[in-house]
Every structure is written in structure tokens, then in C-alpha cells.
């Protein structure tokens, strides 16, 4: 199945093999070390008083009684921390005209959402800190909450944050021109208004941070459940005025992140200040209730969209209007506008039409901030496009497969660009469609559907083609002024016993980053994989790098590891050649043994080379250089993004009396370029699909008209559970990127990108006999019964 890996594609290559994760046993045995597990001497615990109001002015804070409670070491307000920490603003320079109110760890005068942290208590135990929180009296003066996106945009509307002049955070337009005329002349025009609910990440491990300020050295060490240790080293350094080299951020084992753990949270920034004030380690772990009101949320879009189609079913144009509500601030440092921006740029991306117009409005309101979460913007662009494609197919009298075969970009048409400006190197939409059709036995399912309809059983089949953005270059954040690296670095060294240590800047949150890096290093260096130890997540030891987000771990981190391993291998062979009095070009390193490249005859072990290098350098020729450690950095330089593609199919059965949907089966054919580890790619795709199906049927942060979250617990916020999830069949096409030697793109977001769209199309397909349709996710029983006219 693998595409050849050039000259180094060997029979026993680790690249392309389903290698089990070396860290799985440790985690299963309970030997994981999460931030929650850490206990430092003299450690204290923080708890926060949170605003019960969606929008209010802080009139007075009386913490006298709390300060006198048992075990309490410190009660800190916004004013206390504002003297230590400079404010931050969640905008990026290349988002022209974007605005957002300045933020501090704790607010000075105004609270902007229900659940915002207002006062911090530090005590000997978390329970004591919570007791003291209950004893704090805060006098609030209610301000009008902004909770509705339409009201928020009216002129003279109440403002979600008094520090900005209106509720428009950002707006953007794309227009290829002449859209009105194309729509006026089109044989068919389909249009729909779509609603996408807010949801949130619900990581198994909640957010957690432990800050330790050593005043004797002026050194801050932060154990932080984050994806991006270097980003936080920079932020803690700059906002607290501590030299960068004196800030160490350690990300130990992380229990899931999905993008949620790379944003600045007010509590986390506060904990740094609390540790400085207490001069003792301070730990804060968000509990589940706090997670719901303080972790970033995502989505929350209302999209009006239409598609113009000619008589034979060719798509001519799309016209899109997206309004998204983000909270009262834009998140920092990546902003809350990236999702909307990606929504309008990814619309229609798999298809060949050239005419496009889009309008984006990013709106403030008094709710938790939204920001980047797995498959940023993709599910929305995909659901809107794919639903319109199905509606257009019906109008043109085409089957959904035929409609896509007609309109998907031909596999021979690359390189090409989307009407929104994305440049595609090489994608495989047509091959993926053909593969999916066979994999799911599409024709068989259609025949079964017709037969069952006659017996009152209503099944639906939905398809959704997608494009996924991965491996962003500096054009993504760097250009906007954010100190978020697009490059990665690795330090590789050979130990005196001939083992390999790889310190790398990409990080592990459960997806298997360390596994694939180990595979690549073992493969490209020429050692057995068990000899490679991969170390991640510590700014004090690993080189600087962007870490793991936007599916860049394999594509950028993997290429970094590959190039580093090749350089180290050259060093090893040069040294071995000096020892053996051979020429480096005649030698090769295989499974930890230096061999004769042609015959494969063993010459000397890597362990022996290392022993000589470290302990008997006196025996080396005078000009031999024993460089058994190297550091290497790599940044993408070709295409600004490595796009991946694929298509999903969903098969559902709708109970038209209860509105419940049974998801019968789900299929994905995806093309992430070179597959390093098929097992891990399949797991990523399946996990992503489950999150997409969660969004399609279950997950929604529900607010009342006053801006109060009404389902902020795992009893009321429904995450997808194994019992409701179908079997997920995954097929692969491999189109490696030519920008790197490795050829890998990303795969972590592909599942999430299109699962909800496929489900939406499947449910609509099931409702065809009733003349009903739905354009809102999650598709709850209430919404489906309403669509069916049952209630």
C-alpha cells in the first residue's frame, strides 16, 4: 500500500508498519505522570470564585473572612495580579481590522461570561481553597448580556465588552466577481440556512498546571498539560517579565487536547502570578464543571449558503454568508477568528468550480471564548458544501455519487488552486470516491434502502468529500505577529552503548507522536526501534519548535526527525569508515550494525563505534571527528499548507416516531500522503470520526437567553459513547507530498472534518420519503421530530 520511499525504501522499513506504541504499556499500568499526579514539596492549591453573571460590573470584593479561613495562604484579585502580568490582546496582524478587548488573568472591573474566574484563593488543600471561595463576597452589578448573534450585530446594541466599541470582532470578504449574474443564469439554485451548535473538547484529562517559582535563581518552572510548551515559555516570559531562558515549561503525559490545550486561559496565567506571590509551588486542576465554563468552545456558526448548478449538474458557483459568535474576547494568541476564516476558505474546496463569494462576520457575545478545536472550520465548510451538493444532485436528477464524480477536481488536474486561493499540490478525490463506493457497496446499500422503505424502515446514506489543511507554514501565524513556530527541531545522540536518544519539539497527547518519531529515526538511522528513546515536552531539553497542532506532528516533526537521522547516520558512517579504514560510501548502518553496503557483511556494531568514540578516542586517526550528537531544524518551505483529502460515507437508520438515529456504519477513505504507521492513522481517523459524530448527534453547549450555560456537566452534555458508535471502516490512498523526503501530510483532523457532513446527508436521505429536511447539528430527537412534523 505504501508509496516507495526513494532510495531508502528497504524491505524491513519501519515506515509504513503498524508498530504498537511503546508508551501504551506504561500508561495502562498506571505509571503515567500527568500534572495531577505531581506533588512538589510545599505545594499549594488554587481555586477560583467564578462569576454567576454573564455580564456584570464588579462593585466590591470582600475577602476578609476568606483570608482568615483554615489553610488559606493567599486571596488574590484582578488588581493584585495586574501588577505582575501585562495584558494580552487576541488579535493577529494579518486579520486586518480585527479587534478584541485587552485581557488580564483576573478581571479588574467587568466580568464577561458566566463562569469567568474573578478571585483566586490559594490554600494548603483544594478543599480548603474551595471552602474559602464560598466565604468571599463579591458585589456585582448586572449588565445586559449579549447572547444572540443577530441582536449583537444591530446598531446601538448592548456591548458584550465595554472596552470595545461594538460587537464586531472581525469581518472578511472573498469575491471572485460576477456572482449575481452566474446565479441569475443558472439552471438550478439550491440554498439553505445552516446552524452549527457550540461544542467543546471534553478531554479525559482536564486542564492542569503547576507553577513553581524559585526566587533564589529567578527561575520559573511550569508543569503544564499543554500541546505547545515553547509557545507558553514565550508567553509566560513576556507577560511576567522573566527572561525566556529562566522559564521552563514541561508538558508531561497529556490526556488528550484536540487543540483545546494550546490557548491562554485566565486561570493558567493567574497561577503563574499566584506562585510568584506565594513563592511556593501552586497547582490548579480544572474540574469538569469548570472545564465546561472555561475551556474554549468551538463552532457556533450560522451559515446561509447557495449553490448555482447548470442543467447537466455542473456546479458553477457558491455564495456564502457565515456569522460566528466567539465569546466576549478573542482567544490568545491564536485568536477566535481562524475558524471562521477557514470556514469561508474551505467551502467547496474538493470541487472544480471557479466562482465564489463569501462574507464572514465574527461577533462578540457574553459566553465562553471559542477557538481552535480539532478540524478548525472544516466540519462547517464540509457540511454546508456537501449538503448543497446533495440538494443540487436531487435537482439535477443525479445520484450523489454521480454528482460528485462529475464535480470533484479530476486527479490529473494538479497542481491547481481553489477559488478561495488555497494551492493544492496533488489530491486524489476521484480515486477516493471510487474506492469508497466499492468499500461501502454503495449500490447494494441503495437497493437495500429501497426494499426496507417498503417495510417502514428508513435508512439513509450520506457522502461527504473533504479537504484537510495540515502542516501550516509561517504564513499561518508567524506572518500575523504571533511567536508560534512553524519549524521543529530534534537533537539526536548515540549513547556510549549504541542506543539512540531523540529529543524533539513535537509533543505527545495520546495520538502516538513519539511512536512515529521513533519509527522514523530507527528507520532512517538504521537501528532497531527498541533502541530509540523519544523524549518530548520540555523546553529545557528539546530544541525549539512549534509542537503538535494542525496535524503537523508527522509532516513537519517527522521530516525533522528524518533529516536529523540522516545527518547522524552520515556522522556514524564517517566515523566507522575512519575506524575501519574504509570509505563512508561503502558502508551502511542496518539494525545497529555497520555493514558493507554491497554485500551486507557485518563490519562493526554501532555500540563498538560509540565505545571507541566516547572512551577510546585516542585510537582514532587525528582528523576523525566523532560527532555522535546532532541538532537539526526543519521548516516547510514549499506549499504554504500540505492539503490532504478524502471522502466519508455514513449509513443510518432513522426512527421516525422517536427521532432517534442509529448509526449503522461509517466509512472513510483518506489520503494523508505517506502513512508512517497504519494502525495509528486508522486510530486517528476513527477517533476523529467519533468526535464528528458527537457533533452531529450529541454534543452541544446550550445557553439560555441570558447567557447561562444550561448543560455544563457530563450528565447533561452528551459525549458520544462506544455503545452508540458504529463500526468505522478506513481505507487509504497514498499521495505523498513532494515537498519533503518523508512525504507525510496530516491525518488527525480528517475524521472530524467530514463525519458530521456525511451524517447530515444520511439523515436527510432517510427523510426523503417524508419531504422533510434538517440543516442543523446536532440533530437531536427534538429537532428531527420537528422536521418530520411530529411535534
Amino acid at each position: 500500500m505504501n508509496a516507495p520511499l526513494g532510495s531508502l525504501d528497504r524491505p524491513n522499513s519501519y515506515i509504513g508498519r503498524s508498530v504498537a506504541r511503546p508508551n501504551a504499556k506504561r500508561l495502562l499500568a498506571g505509571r503515567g505522570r500527568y500534572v495531577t499526579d505531581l506533588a512538589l514539596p510545599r505545594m499549594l492549591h488554587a481555586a477560583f470564585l467564578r462569576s454567576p453573571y454573564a455580564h456584570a460590573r464588579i462593585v466590591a470584593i470582600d475577602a476578609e473572612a476568606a483570608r482568615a479561613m483554615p489553610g488559606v495562604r493567599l486571596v488574590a484579585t484582578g488588581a493584585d495580579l495586574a501588577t505582575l502580568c501585562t495584558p494580552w490582546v487576541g488579535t493577529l496582524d494579518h486579520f486586518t481590522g480585527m479587534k478584541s478587548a485587552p485581557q488580564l488573568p483576573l478581571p479588574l472591573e467587568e466580568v464577561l461570561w458566566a463562569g469567568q474566574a474573578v478571585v483566586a484563593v490559594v490554600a494548603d488543600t483544594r478543599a480548603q481553597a474551595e471552602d474559602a471561595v464560598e466565604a468571599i463576597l463579591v458585589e456585582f452589578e448586572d449588565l445586559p448580556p449579549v447572547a444572540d448573534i443577530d441582536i449583537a450585530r444591530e446598531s446601538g446594541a448592548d456591548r458584550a465588552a465595554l472596552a470595545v466599541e461594538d460587537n464586531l470582532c472581525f469581518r472578511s470578504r472573498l469575491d471572485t466577481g460576477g456572482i449575481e449574474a452566474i446565479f441569475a443564469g443558472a439552471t438550478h439554485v439550491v440554498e439553505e440556512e445552516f446552524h452549527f451548535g457550540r461544542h467543546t473538547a471534553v478531554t479525559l484529562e482536564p486542564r492542569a498546571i503547576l507553577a513553581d517559582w524559585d526566587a533564589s535563581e529567578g527561575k520559573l518552572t511550569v508543569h503544564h498539560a499543554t500541546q505547545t510548551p515553547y509557545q507558553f515559555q514565550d508567553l509566560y516570559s513576556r507577560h511576567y517579565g522573566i527572561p525566556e531562558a529562566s522559564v521552563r515549561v514541561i508538558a508531561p503525559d497529556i490526556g488528550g487536547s484536540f487543540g483545546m490545550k494550546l490557548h491562554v486561559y485566565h486561570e493558567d496565567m493567574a497561577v503563574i502570578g499566584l506562585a510568584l506571590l506565594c513563592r511556593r509551588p501552586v497547582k490548579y486542576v480544572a474540574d469538569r464543571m469548570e472545564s465546561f465554563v472555561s475551556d474554549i468552545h468551538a463552532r457556533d456558526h450560522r451559515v446561509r449558503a447557495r449553490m448555482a448548478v447548470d442543467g447537466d449538474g455542473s456546479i458553477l458557483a457558491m455564495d456564502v454568508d457565515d456569522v460566528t459568535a466567539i465569546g466576549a474576547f478573542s482567544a490568545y494568541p491564536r485568536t477566535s477568528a481562524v475558524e471562521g476564516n477557514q470556514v469561508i476558505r474551505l467551502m467547496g474546496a474538493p470541487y472544480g468550480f471557479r466562482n465564489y463569494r463569501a462574507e464572514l462576520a465574527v461577533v462578540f457575545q457574553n459566553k465562553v471564548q471559542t477557538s481552535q478545536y480539532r478540524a478548525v472550520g472544516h466540519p462547517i465548510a464540509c457540511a454546508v458544501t456537501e449538503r448543497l451538493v446533495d440538494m443540487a444532485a436531487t435537482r439535477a436528477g443525479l445520484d450523489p455519487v454521480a454528482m460528485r464524480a462529475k464535480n470533484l477536481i479530476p486527479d490529473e488536474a494538479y497542481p491547481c488552486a481553489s477559488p478561495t486561493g488555497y494551492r493544492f499540490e496533488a489530491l486524489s478525490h476521484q480515486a477516493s470516491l471510487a474506492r469508497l463506493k466499492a468499500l461501502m457497496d454503495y449500490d447494494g446499500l441503495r437497493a437495500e434502502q429501497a426494499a426496507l422503505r417498503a417495510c417502514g424502515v428508513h435508512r439513509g446514506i450520506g457522502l461527504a468529500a473533504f479537504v484537510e489543511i495540515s502542516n501550516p507554514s509561517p504564513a499561518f501565524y508567524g506572518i500575523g505577529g504571533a511567536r508560534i513556530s512553524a519549524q521543529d527541531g530534534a537533537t539526536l545522540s548515540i549513547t556510549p552503548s549504541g542506543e539512540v536518544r531523540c529529543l524533539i519539539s513535537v509533543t505527545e497527547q495520546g495520538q502516538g507522536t513519539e511512536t512515529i518519531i521513533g519509527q522514523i529515526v530507527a528507520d532512517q538511522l538504521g537501528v532497531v526501534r527498541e533502541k530509540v528513546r523519544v523524549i518530548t515536552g520540555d523546553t529545557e531539553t528539546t530544541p525549539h519548535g512549534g509542537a503538535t497542532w494542525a496535524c503537523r506532528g508527522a509532516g513537519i516533526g517527522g521530516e525533522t526527525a528524518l533529516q536529523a537521522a540522516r545527518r547522524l547516520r552520515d556522522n556514524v558512517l564517517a566515523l566507522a569508515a575512519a575506524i575501519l579504514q574504509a570509505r563512508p560510501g561503502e558502508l551502511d548502518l542496518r539494525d545497529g550494525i555497520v555493514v558493507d553496503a554491497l554485500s551486507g557483511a557485518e563490519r562493526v556494531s554501532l555500540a563498538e563505534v560509540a565505545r571507541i568514540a566516547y572512551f577510546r578516542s585516542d585510537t582514532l586517526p587525528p582528523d576523525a571527528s566523532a560527532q555522535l550528537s546532532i541538532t537539526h531544524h526543519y521548516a516547510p518551505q514549499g506549499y504554504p499548507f500540505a492539503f490532504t483529502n478524502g471522502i466519508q460515507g455514513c449509513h443510518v437508520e432513522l426512527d421516525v416516531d422517536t427521532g432517534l438515529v442509529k448509526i449503522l456504519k461509517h466509512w472513510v477513505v483518506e489520503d494523508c500522503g505517506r502513512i508512517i504507521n497504519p494502525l495509528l492513522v486508522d486510530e486517528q481517523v476513527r477517533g476523529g470520526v467519533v468526535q464528528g459524530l458527537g457533533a452531529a448527534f450529541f454534543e452541544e453547549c446550550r445557553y439560555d437567553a441570558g447567557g447561562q450555560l444550561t448543560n455544563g456537566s457530563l450528565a447533561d452534555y452528551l459525549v458520544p459513547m462506544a455503545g452508540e458508535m458504529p463500526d468505522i471502516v478506513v481505507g487509504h490512498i497514498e499521495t505523498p507530498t513532494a515537498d519533503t523526503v518523508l512525504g507525510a501530510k496530516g491525518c488527525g483532523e480528517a475524521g472530524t472534518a467530514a463525519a458530521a457532513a456525511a451524517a447530515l446527508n444520511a439523515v436527510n436521505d432517510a427523510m426523503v420519503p417524508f419531504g422533510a429536511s434538517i440543516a442543523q447539528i446536532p440533530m437531536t430527537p427534538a429537532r428531527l421530530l420537528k422536521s418530520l412534523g411530529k411535534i
Partner: protein
Amino acid sequence: MKARAFDYIRPATVAEALAAFAEAEGDASYIAGGQSLIPALALRLQAPARLIDIGHIAALRGIAVEDGWLRLGALTRHVEAHDHPLIAVHAPLLALAAPYVAHPAIRNRGTLGGSVALADPASEFPAMMLAMAAEIEIVGAEGTRRVPADAFFQDLYQTALEPGELLAALHIPVARPEQRCAFDEIARRRGDYALVGCGIRLTMPRDRVEEAHIAFLAVGPTPMRAPAAEAALIGARLDAEAIRRAQAALARDLDPPEDGEVPPAMRLHLARVLLGRLLGRLQDQIAEAA
């Protein structure tokens, strides 16, 4: 969140438990399986100064049949409703409902007494007490009394239990051969509290319904009987017409409250769908038996 600090007492007898409660002057709570109480403590929704663990009181245990009644000690676990042979034979509705109550870990600890004493209107077991015409044995300072299930559930989380009283046992008239029962519920995910649930016990000595017990969960402030629907079935053969009449009558029985996610009309609709399906299932059983 962490629970507030509390005292913990583990009495060995009912008398000691009652005394420990009285001593706390109202600021105490009994704890049985802890599956509802512990979450409430952890969320600081409740913060009694004293917890009285009744889990070691022998008199509150035991499953036995006496004089046509099945006696279930209050400490009988959910998992026993699921597995115990005496319950399967004599109180089949409990066995039918048990798989729908939470998940195995919770069923291993949760007690029937705790579930019925709490009287969550969305819970399965309290509603089954109504469907089975059970009686609830209460013990307090004044002694012991038995209250019919119909009189036990009074309002949202309000029962015939006075403060400090213990639910000692559940008494269920043993199932008779001429009785047929069915249970089902509509939930968005397996193991969740249901959008609506229903247990039915029909007494049909011959081919007509002589007595009907229909109990719903999650449709109002308490578990609810459906007297109008029951009346629609009495004296009738269980056929499509009777089923339709019972479904229609539900509008007189149920007046579901406003709830953000599930509008009242939807709950009534689902209750009708569920009732129709359950009665249809019984109709099929009767047809098969004939």
C-alpha cells in the same frame, strides 16, 4: 470540586441510625450506595455535617418471599434486581428495568432503597414500584409502617418519608401467571436517564384486561401512573383499537413540564409512541401464546 468536610458514622442497627440522625438536629444525611449522594456532595449541592452510613445494618438487607409478597431489604443492590432469581420470578418488571439503570459500576453499588427514597422522577425503580403496586416499609422513631407506592411519591423529590425516617424494605406482591409485563424507555444514549420510560403490568385472567398498571418515568415531578390510559384498557381485548384509545387518553394523564431540550409536546408524543410499542409487544406475546 471537593466535598465539604463532614462527620462519618457507621451504625450497626436501625435504632443507632435513627439516634445518630436525631442527634444531628437535621444536619445529617443517610448514605446507602452513595451513587446519587456522593455526586451531590462533590458538587456542594448538599453539605450535611454528618453522614450516617446505613450500609452495615443487617436488618436492611435480604431478599425473601413471604405470604405472597417479595420483601426486598432497602440495601438490595441494583445489580441484584438485574441478576437475582427471586426477583426475576416474582418481580419481573424490576429485572426488565434494571439493565436500563445507569452502568454496571453504578449498579454494583446503588441500592433499590436509595433509588426509591430519593424518588428521582426520571429513575426506573420508583416508577416500577407504581407499576407493581408495591408497598414501602418505613421505620422511624414512632415504629414501622407500610405505605402503598401510590401514596409514597408526593412531589418532586418528596415522599412519605419524614426527616430522619429510613426506608427499610420494599414489598412487592408476587407476580401471578395471568399477569404480563413490559418495560422500555427512550434514551439518547444507552444507560442515560431516559427522555421517557414506561413499565406496564396487565392482569388478564382470560382474553380481556381485568386490571392495568401503567407507570411512566420522566414525565412529571414524580413517577406517574396513567389512570385514563389504564381505564381505556380495562375490560378490553388488547387490540389496535384499544391501544389507540389508551394512547389518546394519555393527554389526560400527563402534563409534562417545560424543559429546554425536550418540549412538553415532545414528551407526550414519546410517551404515546412508547405506550403503543409496549402494548403492541404484549399483544404479540398474547398472539404467540394463543
